C-alpha cells in the first residue's frame, strides 16, 4: 500500500481535468439554477412542460431504442454463442469479422444504408428489377430505416458481450444437464442462459443507451420528419440556438440513459442471487 501523499499526487492531475472539462460543464448545463441565457433549471423544466416536440421525440427515441435492442439481441446472441463454441482459430477470425465494423465511423456505416435504401439505391433497383415493386421504393426517412441502421451499428456490442458471457459457462455444466436427461433446449434455457444473463444484460444496456443517444443514424436515415432526442438537441443547440429547449432535451436524454442503466443493474442483481 502506498503513502497517501503519492496517491494524491498521482490522482490530482486526472481529477482536475475531469472536474474542469467534465463535471463542472455537465453540471452547469444540466442543473445550474442560475438565471443565465436559458433561464436555469427552472427554465429548462418549463420548456419541458410546454414543448410537445420533446415528448413526442422522447417516445419515438425510446421506441426506436427498444426495437433496436430486441433486434440486436436476436441477431447478436446466436452469433455470440456460435463464436463461443467454435474451435480457437475460427473463434478469433469470426470475432474479428464481427468486431471489424466498430473500427469504421458511424458516418461511413450509415452512408452505406443511404446507398442501399435510397430512391435510386441498391434495394430499390433489386425490387423493381425482380418485378416486386413497379416504382422506386423509398424506405429512407422512416423509423424503420433508423432501426435497420442502428441494429447494424450496435449488433457487434451484443456479439462481444454475449461471446464473453457464453465462454464463461463451463461446457461440462451443459453436458451434465444433458446427461441427467434435459433436452438441448432445456439445458440451454435452465443452465446456460441464467449463467450468461448478466453479460447479456450488459450488452443490452450498451445497445439501448447507444440507440437513445445515437445521432448520425437518425439524422441521415430518419431525416427531419422523424426527430429523435439527439437530432432535436442538435437542432435546438446548433441550428435555432434555443438554449432553454436544448438544455431540456439534454436533461431528458441523460435521464433516460441513467434510468436504463439503473434498471439493468437491478435486473442483473436479481439474476444472480448471491
Amino acid at each position, binding site marked *: 500500500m502506498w503513502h497517501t501523499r*503519492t*496517491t494524491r499526487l*498521482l*490522482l490530482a492531475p*486526472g481529477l482536475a*481535468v475531469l472536474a*474542469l*472539462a*467534465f*463535471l463542472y*460543464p455537465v453540471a*452547469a*448545463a*444540466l442543473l445550474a439554477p442560475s438565471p443565465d441565457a436559458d433561464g436555469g433549471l427552472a427554465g429548462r423544466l418549463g420548456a419541458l412542460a410546454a414543448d410537445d416536440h420533446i415528448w413526442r421525440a422522447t417516445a419515438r427515441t425510446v421506441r426506436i431504442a427498444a426495437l433496436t435492442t430486441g433486434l440486436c439481441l436476436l*441477431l447478436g446472441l446466436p*452469433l455470440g454463442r456460435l463464436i463461443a*463454441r467454435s474451435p480457437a482459430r475460427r473463434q478469433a477470425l469470426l470475432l*474479428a*469479422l*464481427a*468486431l*471489424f*465494423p466498430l*473500427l*469504421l*465511423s*458511424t*458516418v*461511413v456505416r450509415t*452512408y*452505406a444504408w443511404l*446507398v*442501399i435504401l*435510397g430512391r*435510386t*439505391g*441498391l434495394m430499390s*433497383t433489386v425490387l423493381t428489377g425482380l418485378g416486386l415493386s413497379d416504382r422506386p421504393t423509398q424506405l429512407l426517412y422512416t423509423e424503420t430505416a433508423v432501426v435497420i441502421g442502428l*441494429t*447494424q*451499428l450496435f*449488433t457487434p456490442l451484443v456479439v*462481444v458481450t454475449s461471446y464473453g458471457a457464453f465462454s464463461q459457462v463451463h461446457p461440462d455444466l*451443459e453436458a451434465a444437464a*444433458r446427461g441427467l436427461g434435459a433436452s*438441448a*433446449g432445456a439445458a440451454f434455457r435452465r443452465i446456460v442462459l441464467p449463467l450468461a444473463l448478466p453479460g447479456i444484460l450488459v450488452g443490452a444496456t*450498451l445497445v439501448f443507451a*447507444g440507440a437513445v*443517444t445515437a*445521432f*448520425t443514424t437518425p439524422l*441521415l436515415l430518419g431525416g427531419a420528419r422523424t426527430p429523435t432526442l*439527439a437530432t432535436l*438537441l*442538435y437542432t435546438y*443547440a446548433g441550428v435555432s440556438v434555443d438554449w432553454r429547449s436544448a438544455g431540456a432535451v*439534454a436533461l431528458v*436524454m441523460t435521464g433516460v*440513459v441513467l434510468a436504463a442503466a439503473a434498471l439493468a443493474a437491478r435486473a442483473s442483481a436479481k439474476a444472480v442471487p448471491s
Partner: protein
Amino acid sequence: MSGRHPLLTGIALVALAFLLGPILPVIGIALTAGDTIEFPPRGLSPRWFAEAVAHEPFLAALRTSVLLAAAGTALALLLGLPVALALTRSGARLRAGVGTLFTLPVIVPELVLGYALFQTLMVDLRVDAFGALLAGHTVLLLPYAVRVTGAALARADPSLEEAARGLGATGWTTFTRVTLPVARPGIVAAAVLSVVTSFNNVPLSLLLNGPGTTTLPVEMLHHVEFAFDPLVAAACTLLLALAVAVTLVTERLAGFTHVFGRQEATRWNR
C-alpha cells in the same frame, strides 16, 4: 458438439452477413463514372477518389482529426496512467469511489457533453474550437486509459516492484524499468482504442467547431446532408482501407481481439 441448432447457426451467419455486407455497395458507388449515387453504377472510373483526396474541406478536417486524435490520446494516457497506478495500489474504497468517477464520461451522452463544453468553454470562457475539442476528447478517452492500463497493472505481480526497490532501485527507476514495461500491453491497447474512438467520433465533436476547425467525420456528415454525390463514397472507401490497415497492425502489435474484444471498451463508437 451437442445441441448445435441449425436455425441458430443460420441466424448467426445471417447476422455476420448483415454486419459486413452493407459496406460493399459503397465501394461500387465510389468507383462510378457518373455523378450520382445509383445502382448499377454508370461505368467505372477512379475520378471520385481523385476528387476526394483533393477536396480541401476534407483535407483540412483530416488534419484537425489526426492532430486531435494524437493529442487527445497522449493527454488521456498521461493523465490516466497515474490514476490507474494510484487506483491499483490503493484500498478498495478509494478504488470504488474514484474509479466510478472516471467511468462517468462514458455514461453521460456524448452529445450532452459536447453541448455542455460548447456552453462553458466556447461561449462563457471563449476557448477556441480546437481547445474545446481537445478538452472533450481527452475527457472521453480518459476512462479507457484508466481502465485498460489499470487492467494490465492489476495483472502484474506487485512483488516485482518490491524486489526492484529492495535491490536498491529508486522510485523512478522502478517505474521506468519495471512498472512501465509491465503496463506496456495495456498502454498499447488503450492507445489504439483511443485513437480509433477519437478519430471516428461524431456526437461530441458536432457542436465544437469553428472557422477552419471541423473533424473529418463531422465534415463528411455535413457533406452528405447537402450533396448526394459519390464524393463521400470515395472518402468512405479510403477510410475502409485505413480500418483494414489498423486491424492488421493491431493484430501484429497486441492481438486484435485482445484490444477490441473487451467489454469495457465497447462503448467507444457511436
